[in-house]
């Protein structure tokens, strides 16, 4: 009835130790787990391949190096930086709708400080760099305020940042009086035109932000603390993590990245408008969530959400290249996303579908 082969020792399985010959063979056990964690990060690959094939079928111009590097990547860069910012905030268990507002607010403050009164500015004639620094300081202040209201007062992040979004968009319109600024100092547009190793500097910035954030979130203690806080704020607190301070920090970091995205966009459209970036927050959330970030916090990866950006960028590009009547472009966009979701369900999304 009972065999003696199970000593208590053999029940402890430490699979990272090379030969832990235990009951269910850890060696065979460990491999699938590792693979699975990769598989989860890259679970969007089937969808990306699927969309790539559609693109190839619809337009000969899609699968060209020029199109992929200069169109898909360049037009996705601003989105990518915003998505990284939002992903970190979501992983920490929070929510920030006001990131969208920074995309127009930061460049607007800067250009307003620079521009003469005749040109619709403050007339204070700040130097471009001082103005940029001031606008970044403003972004930090907003992030701090969000962080304090959410992290310290415990107000609902959704509604605080929604009100903040409305407020900041209003401030942007108010400052500019609705005008568009097209006379920009060189330092405002360099982010749009500079190239490095044949690629737009926008792409490099986006790649750097993604890589930096990915390493930070997976390899550094602070990144892991952000995951822990989002996963279970009480357990994180019980383990000695200063969750409030961390929440404030995450909001500030997000605001900084969003301001950077704003300057990148200004570089690309060579102007500052009060409405730049309007509505982008939906796409930001879409990319993050498609990329595997959980709105409940604690789950998902930066690499995953960057792939989400890539997927959406590819779909947009294909639709632009295609001959679909413009009235049906939006419907096609929604349909492809839905199809990709269901397809991914069939392959790998299933693992994280549990609520």
């Amino acid at each position, binding site marked *: 009835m009972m065999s003696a082969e199970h000593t208590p020792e053999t029940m402890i399985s430490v699979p990272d130790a090379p030969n832990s010959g235990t009951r269910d063979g850890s060696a065979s056990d460990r491999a699938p787990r590792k693979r699975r964690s990769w598989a989860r990060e890259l679970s969007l690959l089937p969808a990306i391949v699927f969309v790539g094939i559609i693109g190839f079928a619809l337009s000969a111009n899609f699968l060209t190096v*020029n199109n992929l590097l200069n169109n898909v990547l360049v037009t996705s860069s601003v989105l990518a930086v915003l998505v990284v910012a939002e992903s970190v905030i979501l992983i920490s268990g929070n929510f920030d709708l006001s990131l969208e507002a920074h995309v127009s607010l930061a460049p607007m403050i800067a250009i307003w400080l620079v521009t003469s009164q005749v040109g619709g500015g403050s007339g204070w004639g700040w130097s471009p760099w001082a103005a940029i620094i001031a606008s970044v300081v403003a972004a930090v202040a907003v992030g701090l305020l969000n962080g304090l209201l959410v992290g310290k007062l415990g107000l609902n992040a959704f509604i605080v940042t929604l009100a903040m979004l409305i407020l900041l968009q209003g401030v942007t319109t108010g400052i500019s009086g609705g005008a*568009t600024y097209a006379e920009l100092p060189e330092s405002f547009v360099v982010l749009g035109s500079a190239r490095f190793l044949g690629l737009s500097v926008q792409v490099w910035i986006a790649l750097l932000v993604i890589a930096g954030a990915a390493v930070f979130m997976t390899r550094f203690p602070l990144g892991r603390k952000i995951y822990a806080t989002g996963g279970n704020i009480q357990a994180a607190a019980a383990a000695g993590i200063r969750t409030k301070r961390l929440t404030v920090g995450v909001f500030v970091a997000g605001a900084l990245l969003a301001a950077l995205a704003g300057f990148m966009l200004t570089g690309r459209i060579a102007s500052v408008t009060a409405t730049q970036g309007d509505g982008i927050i939906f796409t930001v959330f879409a990319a993050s969530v498609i990329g595997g970030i959980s709105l409940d916090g604690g789950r998902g990866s930066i690499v995953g959400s960057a792939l989400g950006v890539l997927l959406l960028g590819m779909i947009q590009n294909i639709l632009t290249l295609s001959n679909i009547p413009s009235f049906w472009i939006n419907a096609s966009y929604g349909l492809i996303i839905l199809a990709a979701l269901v397809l991914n369900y069939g392959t790998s999304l299933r693992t994280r579908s549990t609520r």
Partner: protein
Amino acid sequence: SRGASSKSGETTVGYSAGALDNPFAVRLSKLVVQKSRAGGLNMLSAVNAGGDPAKQVSDLNALIGRGAKGIVLHPRDSDAIVPAIKAANKAHVPVITVDTAANGGDIYVQIRADNVAMGESACKEIGRLTGGSGTVLELFGSLTTTAGAERHKGFTDCMAADFPGVRVIGKNTNWNTATAADTAQTVMSTSNIKAVFMASDSVMVSAVQKVMQNLGQWKPIGQPGHVGVVTIDGSAESLDAVRAHYVDSVVSQPIDQYGSLAAQYLKQAVAGDTLKPGPTDHDSEIVERNGNLEDVLPSPVVTITNADDPTLWGNAS
């Protein structure tokens, strides 16, 4: 009621904007408010419906409630604005529309330019530039706005009829600057584009210029590799680019005229004067259409020859 005659007997009037989300609408609202106040009317600050026709109805009710005796409307949608106008009619408050006409209700006068005609003018310019062949990129505005739909219609109908040899790649920008940049980038880097038509230069010209510069397609007129550029609106940037020999033609909107005429008609309306069809003192004619009077203003085509015309709104500031 209270607000009706504050400020030493000045008549209270109002301005309702369908949306203030683009430079054109912003400038229009500022002009009308400014000119009305200069003309001795107590113009309340403009109210903004934010693109929601239902809100424009309640905005109008609010203006009437605050004692407005005359209202200038900038409709977002020609049809959806009708209940708002009927509400004003019921309160016997005269209504004037600017820029976009309304399709119903009693309107004192509709001051507008012909968006279809603007699209046609742009089409003629494109035809001239391309010589009737090649591929053209059309960046049009949101088709759910009257201006976007009518310019698109005027342009594409005319292209199909008059220049069947030109292939038009039409792309919707939703009046969004970044979308215009992304679309121009993608299309112009993958297709051989002979000319570009932008339905609104105040939204698109800086961004598309930047894209074309990066692609090496922003060349002065006459240089090899020059890509033709035709725009509607006539913002300061676009006129500068005409003078710099980069942009070929601009169809300029009569926005300054909108402002002064709206103030003038508003004054007449609250004073009880009636308008009659016939020619005006400003190169246009008041005509009757669907039971309402319209003052249809011409939209001049600007090229290098008349780019310095001081009456163009883009040259005003």
